[in-house]
């Protein structure tokens, strides 16, 4: 996790994140399979999938779409590297936005109806979750008086004690971020007949491989963000809670069906306002 030396944190993230991400996703797929009464793939299947994708024929509609996807991968890695390097969390969030926008533009550029609808829905998702992420960052600042992830993580007591609302709000939008049902509206893992993988429709071979790889990095970054609510003050509890939260996400994924985008947008914004903004306001009373 975070270390005193930013360079070590950055390097560890760049090298280890794909493996950590693979293990988490692999477990995800196994547990999902068990919930559905299947055996499921081997633990490292997500990694095998990516390696396989890189060996496939390189098919594109035009070359520029790869440029956007490469940009997406690069900026997801920069996002995580900034985060684990202990940098300003607002910069981290903005780098994440840049990465997301790059992915969406990649899908737009293909000029395909499925990708187009997927891109627009992804954009709605982005709009739905952005306020909560910023509010979470500001919540961290209010308590720790610093925007630096390193300072936030090393704060004396677990932040979740004073930021419960923001934690709940963040877990809510995490469902969107992890593309789990009921909010998997932009790529729709399970609804092939409707969107044919939406955003990802026109990406194949190594391009798709880059997207999957970026997902692994993003996953580790998001879990790291959750860890900030516990920090070095309660690392073990933090990891346990994160594992439970992830289990809950898998359960919700399997137990719910997709909803319309408008419900997603409304509910994310309302949860942000109720849980997040109220928590921020309450901090004034708690901290004074």
């Amino acid at each position, binding site marked *: 996790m975070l270390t005193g030396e930013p360079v070590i944190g950055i390097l560890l993230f760049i090298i280890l994140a794909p493996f950590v991400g693979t293990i988490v996703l692999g477990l995800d797929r196994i547990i999902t399979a068990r919930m559905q009464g299947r055996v499921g793939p081997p633990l490292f299947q997500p990694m095998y999938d990516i390696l396989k994708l890189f060996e496939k*024929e*390189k*098919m*594109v*509609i*035009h*070359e*520029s779409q*790869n*440029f956007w996807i*490469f*940009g997406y991968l*690069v*900026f997801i890695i920069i996002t995580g590297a*900034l985060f684990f390097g202990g*940098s*300003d969390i*607002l*910069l981290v969030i*903005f*780098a994440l*936005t*840049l990465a997301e*926008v790059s992915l*969406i*533009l990649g899908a*737009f*550029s*293909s*000029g*395909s*109806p*499925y990708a*187009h609808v997927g891109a*627009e829905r992804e*954009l*709605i998702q*982005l*709009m*739905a*979750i*952005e*306020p*909560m992420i*910023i509010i979470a960052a*500001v919540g961290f*600042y*209010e308590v720790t008086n610093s*925007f630096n992830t390193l300072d936030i993580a090393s704060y004396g007591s677990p932040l979740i004690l004073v930021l419960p609302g923001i934690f709940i709000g963040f877990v809510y939008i995490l469902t969107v971020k992890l593309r789990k049902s009921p909010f998997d509206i932009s790529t729709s893992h399970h609804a092939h007949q409707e969107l*044919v993988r939406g955003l990802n*429709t*026109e990406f194949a071979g190594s391009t798709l491989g880059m997207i999957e790889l970026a997902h692994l990095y993003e996953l580790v970054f998001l879990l790291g963000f959750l860890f900030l609510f516990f920090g070095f003050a309660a690392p073990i509890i933090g990891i346990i809670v994160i594992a439970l939260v992830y289990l809950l996400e898998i359960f919700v994924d399997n137990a719910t069906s997709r909803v319309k985008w408008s419900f997603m947008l409304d509910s994310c*914004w309302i949860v*942000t306002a109720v849980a*997040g*903004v109220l928590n*921020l*306001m309450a*901090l*004034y009373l708690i901290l004074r």
Partner: protein
Amino acid sequence: MESLIFLILFPLIAGGIMLFLPNGRGRDLFVNFAAIVTCLGSLYLLFEYFGKGEVLFAVDGTFVDPLILAAEVAIGLFIIGISLKFKKYLVTVLAALQLAMAAYTEIVFEPAHNIGFDLFIDPFSLIMALIIGIIGSLICVYATGYMKTYHEHHKDVKDRRPLFFFLMFLFLSAMFGIVFSNNIMWLFLFWEITTLCSFLLIGYARDEVSWKNAFWALLLNVIGGVAFSGAILFINAFSAGTDIYLNELLKSSPEIALVAAAFIGFAGLTKSAQFPFSSWLVGAMVAPTPVSALLHSSTMVKAGVYVIVRFAPIYESSLIGIAFAFIGALTFLTASAIAISQSNAKKVLAYSTIANLGLVVACAGIGTEEAVWAAILLIIFHAVAKSLLFLSVGSVEHQKHSRDIEDMGGLIAAMPKIALMMLIGMAGMFLAPFGMLISKWASIHAFVNAIPPFGMLLIAIIAYGSGITVFFWTKWMGKIIEVRTERKPVEKEASRPEMSAILTLGGLTVLACLIFPLISSTMIEPYLHAIYHTTSPLLSLSNEIIMLFMIVVVILLPLSLFHFAKGRTLRRQYMGARVTEVEGEHLKFLGSMGVMKEEELSNYYFPNMFGEKELSRAGVWSSILIIVVMFALLSWVFPLGVMM
């Protein structure tokens, strides 16, 4: 001092000459010449006053003052006359009221003009002068090419180009006057000139719609003018007499300064098109594109935020300041949301200007050192990126005969240069690590520490607004790069003057992002230091390095295209495995009934959720409420006994 006076007078004289030059190569050359001289003049100003801090100049008033007075009366009479002619009696009444207040001030108080400094320059007005000089002149160069095509396309509009160019340069002259004036009476005259210029330029086409929108702009700006003359009357009536000078006023007793700041700030709200006054700027879109670009980037609205940012130190931690901050934040949120539902490119740009200026006003209302830093950066980045976008859209409109975003699909293939410039401009407006985002980052930093618990509410507003901004810009970018079939670029994307202005502005946008730490440390921070007397580092070196690193990555990324061009198999879109064919620029697919259908894609606009009418109404009424509360507070801050 000579260079200041030169910058005010030269565009005025050059514009006056243009009034008599017939259309043709000669006039275009003269416009280019005047633009270059103006631009070089502002650069010379940078060279002359760089690092000098605040410099004040006394001007011999005996000759100038009667002229100023005469000009003010002339403008007042002109507005009264034209509003009578067009039966816009409300404008008449307000203009008459304003004239009466000015006359009352002159006759009763006889403001003593010879005891202070009428002109000044400091790093902030230097930055503003550079924006006016460089961007304003580029827009004028662009206009030579644009207006020619404009009249080829709009045969019904009478060609008034001599007047057009005169007004454009008069506008620049007045803007220089605004940012160099230390004497508030002078500032007010230049303020009125910009109102007049914008009125005449919006009404350029002289048809019914243009007149309607022009008068609407005039009406709202005259309301601001009344507030401004109210401030002047107040200052003359209740202060020591030297307070008509900005530098003295900023130092004067809190009551006097705060009342003046509230009234002049109110005038600033009208000019910078904040809610409830935003509608005039949207209506101003009927004007030819160079006018829109000028209004949005280097003149008019910038004059509004300029005065508000000037008074920012007075707003700091006062309830009046909080009111301004909320009007700004509310404007940012509402205008951004409305932009989602618009498909008219110029309207999207208009609403995004209103939104961004809202952020500036919010920062100025907070008034802390950090917030003002963010405000000035926002002004700079907005000026460059927005002018780039307006000019690009203008040229696209001439090619495509439409200003609708939905008609810009695949622009990157049809007009690659301009499309690329638009992408740069849009990235500059909202994407990390580009300019506007740095400012947004700074404003969040600033709000967190500001006036608890109001700061948190502002943060929440910014957080939502930020998500919304990402939505409407990205979908537009997506439309531009959405290429369905191979298509050849058009032969000539725009005329030479247009292209040169657009490319220069594109370069300036990138440059501003690269050198903003330098601008900050050499100009903005010295200005802030002079006011706040602190030296807290506003941008840590490590963050600066990260931002620069990200910019370099973004600039280098396109090189990856060379790699991705190798060894790829090109395929057509996967349309649920349907049969597809290409016909010209159209992509067709086999529909369910066995007929070939053309593929059409369009973006989401959510008119039900982000409808212009409903949101505008909400924005207008809530901002009116805030303003009413603000002036109620003001009468409480300033006891009635003193006022009487």
